[in-house]
């Protein structure tokens, strides 16, 4: 790592550490926690969109499936927290391995449609498989667990956990970006034919990316389950998938900071601004339009361009 990179990481950690001190109350810290969980989800989708050039409209599957797994295992099977979490991550990741095989039959719009269709099938299953999922009434958790001697029921410890996981995710994805695999993945995005000629197995590279995306999505899913302590088909719905996609594109696909920024902005409009602006839904739409009109590649690339322009 260069000194500049170390500085960047310290800045990120310092910013996350400052949040509990800056925010006026536990309620706002709770909202910050929601935002960071969605940031992890958006980052996971960004592996597909930003690095692999595969636009998925079914990413809610990797939020909802592990969240359901977590709720079912802890409430109905009565598992302890740690095995529950590990099993939920495994189930979510395995789902992505399977769905990846199906979705990667196509690329471009076909890929988008298969992911959408798979998402709708899972949503329908959650709605109708009442014996397992409780149907539209969902599953309620009896509270957050103790993990490694820490009681996550309080807002602050849970925030710290989520923030730590986010830093971990950012670091892993940064490494992925810099690795040979990351270069290959970008290669399959920009020049799939050339990659094939060079002897790379394009399908396998995309599949591994799909699984990595599913794994980090599952991490967000487990945190989501513990955060809201309630899982219902909404976690698997098309609006949830679309919202995740919007977070990535709004912030800027292919960047590390973009999905985080997108997740934070959308969460703030949905939960905070909506308390003051009745027509917040229009405002959300207007935000998308304005950002794309001014910065066609998203917020973070746009800002970076603008800074560079100023410096030059």
């Amino acid at each position: 790592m260069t000194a500049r990179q170390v500085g960047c990481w310290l800045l990120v950690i310092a910013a996350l550490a400052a949040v509990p001190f800056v925010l006026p109350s536990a309620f706002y810290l709770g909202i910050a926690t929601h935002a960071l969980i969605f940031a992890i989800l958006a980052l996971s989708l960004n592996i597909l969109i930003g690095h692999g050039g595969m636009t998925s409209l079914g990413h809610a599957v990797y939020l909802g499936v592990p969240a359901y797994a977590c709720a079912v295992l802890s409430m109905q099977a009565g598992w302890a927290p740690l095995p529950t979490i590990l099993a939920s991550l495994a189930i979510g990741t395995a789902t992505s391995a399977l769905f990846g095989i199906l979705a990667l039959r196509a690329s471009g719009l076909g890929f988008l449609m298969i992911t959408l269709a798979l998402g709708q099938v899972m949503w329908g299953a959650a709605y109708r498989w009442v014996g397992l999922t409780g149907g539209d009434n969902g599953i309620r958790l009896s509270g957050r667990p103790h993990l490694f001697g820490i009681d996550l029921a309080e807002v602050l410890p849970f925030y710290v956990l989520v923030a730590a996981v986010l830093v971990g995710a950012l670091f892993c994805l940064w490494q992925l970006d810099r690795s040979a695999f990351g270069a290959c993945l970008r290669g399959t995005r920009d020049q799939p034919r050339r990659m094939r000629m060079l002897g790379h197995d394009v399908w396998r590279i995309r599949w591994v990316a799909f699984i990595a995306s599913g794994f980090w999505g599952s991490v967000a899913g487990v945190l989501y389950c513990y955060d809201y302590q309630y899982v219902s088909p909404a976690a698997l719905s098309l609006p949830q998938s679309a919202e995740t996609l919007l977070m990535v594109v709004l912030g800027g696909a292919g960047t590390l900071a973009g999905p985080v920024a997108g997740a934070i902005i959308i969460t703030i409009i949905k939960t905070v601004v909506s308390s003051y602006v009745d027509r917040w839904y229009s405002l959300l739409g207007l935000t998308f339009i304005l950002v794309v009109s001014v910065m066609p590649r998203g917020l973070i690339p746009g800002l970076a361009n603008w800074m560079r322009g100023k410096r030059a």
Partner: protein
Amino acid sequence: MTLSRRGLLQTGIGAFSLAMTTHKARADEPIRIGFLTVKTGPLAAGGIQMEQGMVLFLKERGNKLAGRDVKLIVADTAGSPATTRTKAQELVERDKAHVLIGPLAAFEALAIADYTTAQKIPTLGVAAAEDMTQRMASPWFVRGTASSAQCAHTMAFYAATELKYKRICVIGDDFAYGHEQNAGFQRVFEDNGGRVVQKLWPPLNAPDYGTYISQIKSNVDAVFMSFAGSNGFKFTKAYFEYGLGGKIPLLGGMTAMDEAILQQTGDDAVGVLTANWYSAQYDSPENKAFVAGMQRDYKVDPGYYAAGPAVEAAVLEAAMKTVGGDIDDRAALMKAIRTNLVPNTVRGPVRFDAGGQAVGNVYIRRAEKKGSKIVNAVIKTYPDVSQYWTYPEKEFLAQPPYSRDFPVARYLEN
């Protein structure tokens, strides 16, 4: 000592004078009512009516309940369980709401049930999920409207005993609210000699009901529909297009032919029988004033969604009077809510059972033309209807909750 005295004097002067001494310091502060409703997205129709009913109720009292100013804080849940939870936290933790009214949908109410119980916030609900006042009842939750099956039970009894129907097809949205209504209907109908011979479950977002309507058996005495939102309107329209209207009578649950969709359904609605805990035609001074107010302010007749908050607010007002305006003693307030008999809400008298579910009138209503508009005329009133119908509470609760497959339909003909 205080507690035992309060236990003895549940209502009236005793508690009043006692409370007066404790709340004086804060009496100038308004009571904060947190109101959870849906104002954006597909569920917004009901959510907007909820807000209208609530605003009107407070307006008619000069924004005062039991002599204290009221601050109504409305939060938009957007019809999402996650947002509902955040908004409930916002109302409780940031805005320091004393009580919550709402939210609209069952999954929203369930998403916050544990939170409001843990926070000990008196919550007056509108959503119908059976178990919220049954197997998962909370000491901090009451519902002044009805459980899903409460009105369906009544409709079934009327169909079996008054209309003497023997064979019925039930159809409803394929989700918990539809399941619970149809299950309750089936149980009471079959216990009174009828038979449910067909069950149809269109998905909640069915683009069209043609597929289902053409499956309805031609030899049934009636069709019972348990739709919510605009689906009852869409179904009834299609029912007439397929030539069944006027041939096989239509019965409905409490939201199937709501006042909100009655005018749009038009002449096709005439003759549809529904059971509900409310009708805009219910004849009482309180309801007449409420309906007139809705007509004046919003140019509509109130239905399920507008009347619900008005009932809850009346329950709250009565309890506030009981505790002498002292809203800070939540335990006392909740106790008053649960033990009061409120004689004059817009739906009529209301009291609560042990689970926190209102026991009150259920009206059998027939959609009729009255001048240029269509109304749900009350043709029979069943007083004191319990969520358990006439079954013993213990026996009722020992059984599984109502669902798509319980009680088992023994008479299906396929």
